[in-house]
């Protein structure tokens, strides 16, 4: 069997007495959209943190493309092709939207010990950044300060930045949180368009979107994987229904 793009082995993490990850074994194949669902406090964001390199697991290992990256810091993982978006919007508020995305492009364009040329006039940075902004529908908002943009626009900008680093695996932490129906629909459409060209690990509470998009779904419950499989299998799983889905399976959003 071919090695999956991302694989974790016995990932565990405790915060005080709270178990956030409990022996998590997860595999994301190249090109697949893999959703992770679970009630609030199930350890989804912690899992993303462990994969992105922001949170150090107590035990267990993370492999990307066959390499053990458990000890790698976030910036090195990102350079290898692991990009994340944040659940709580994390942007450069005092920069313009274009500056934000251009920085993400710059991160992938070799070292930045270049001290003289004006980076804001560098087409090698600005053009891919403009394209990424246009891709999420923010083309007309490029020169606006991020602090002056709406929450919905921030979410889309998060996505544009993550994509601008040209990742092989995109870690998306609730990309649709706080979006209106129109913006949500745009994100779903975008993710569908991206499917196949890169692997995506998606955390999302919008069950309709998750079941429509995912190739595979993993269910977390108090840090533990209680089920993992195709959407239909997950929908039918008795333990999952008991633990989490219940009424949410009909399409409601879990606050």
């Amino acid at each position, binding site marked *: 069997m071919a090695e999956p793009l991302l694989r974790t082995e016995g990932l565990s993490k405790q915060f005080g007495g709270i178990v956030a990850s409990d022996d998590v074994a997860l595999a994301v194949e190249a090109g697949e959209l893999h959703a992770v669902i679970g009630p609030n406090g199930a350890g989804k964001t912690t899992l993303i943190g462990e994969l992105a390199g922001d949170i150090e697991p107590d035990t267990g290992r993370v492999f990307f493309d066959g390499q053990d990256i458990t000890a790698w810091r976030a910036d090195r993982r990102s350079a290898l092709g692991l990009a*994340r978006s944040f659940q709580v919007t994390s942007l450069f508020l005092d*920069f313009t939207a274009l*500056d934000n995305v251009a920085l993400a492009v710059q991160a992938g364009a070799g070292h*930045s*010990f270049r001290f003289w*040329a004006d980076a804001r006039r560098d087409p090698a940075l600005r053009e891919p950044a403009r394209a990424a902004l246009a891709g999420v529908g923010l083309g007309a908002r490029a020169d606006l300060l991020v602090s002056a943009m709406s929450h919905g626009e921030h979410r889309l900008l998060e996505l544009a930045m993550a994509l601008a680093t040209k990742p092989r695996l995109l870690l998306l932490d609730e990309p649709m949180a706080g979006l209106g129906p129109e913006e949500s629909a745009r994100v779903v459409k975008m993710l569908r368009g991206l499917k196949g060209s890169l692997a995506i690990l998606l955390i999302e509470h919008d069950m309709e979107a998750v079941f429509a998009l995912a190739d595979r779904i993993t269910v977390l419950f108090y840090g533990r994987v209680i089920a993992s499989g195709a959407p239909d299998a997950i929908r039918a799983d008795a333990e999952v229904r008991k633990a989490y889905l219940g009424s949410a399976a009909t399409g409601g959003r879990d606050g």
Partner: protein
Amino acid sequence: MSARITPRNAAVAGMLAILALVPVYCAATGSAFALSLFTRIVIFAIAAVALNLAMGFGGMVSFGHAAFLGLGGYVVGILAKEGVGSGFVQWPLALVVSGLFALGVGSLSLRTRGVYFIMITLAFAQMAYYVASGLDRYGGDDGLTIYHRSTFGGVIDLSNKTQFYYLCLALLVAFVYLVSRLVNSRFGLVIQGARSNERRMRAIGFPTFRYKLVCFVISGMLCGLAGVLLANHTDFISPAIMHWTRSGDLIVMAVLGGMGSVMGPAIGAVTLLLLEEWLSRVTEYWPMILGPLILLVVLFARGGIDGLLTRLSRG
């Protein structure tokens, strides 16, 4: 940078024009004092611009930048006492020493943030202060008189007060240009990004530590050169130059003038030192007036004087 004529740009141009004409005024009136005062102002403007590269753009609030003034000054003083008067030796060595000190301080302090960073930079500066106080051969607490200013083989005579002043002013203009190129380069955007949101910078793949460290080193070296100039200006060097209140002065200059721009701290240095000079003639209680004045600017003119001028320019 656009070259449009706005009240802000006019004010900056006016300030530079006045600075350029100071020696002419002094020659006309025979006032040696004004030339000395303005030489000092220009040197502190260089130091404040240097500090602001780390503080305003890199978000590294260093409370120990006076140490670099002292290091630069002591390299000149010690070499002069040991008979090495050539600026071609003194100045590059001062840059190397300041750079190495910044590398050491930065490597440790940049692993912390916020108030811890401030305290570590302060601690290193205090250490440098006490080391200098212990240098008995070089005057200890009393300081060291420098009998000969740096020599440049006849290219420029630093003992000539006018020539020295113009050298300082030219260096200020050069550094402002250099820093303004720097902060808009790829490197500059990385350090500004790290100031704005370091976690995000790491998430998109930047190893921020090394960029911040290089920024801190450049800032320290420029400030070290200001120390070289200061020692040549006063013909004297003592530990007092490294006192923590001096580091505080540099921060006040940057905040007063505006941390958001390259020119801001220079404006702040000119304003603060002129106000200090003028108020201290009016009353001996001048800090009681200056203090609230600075407080008002910080509270009501976010972005300092330069920020205020820029907002006026936008109408």
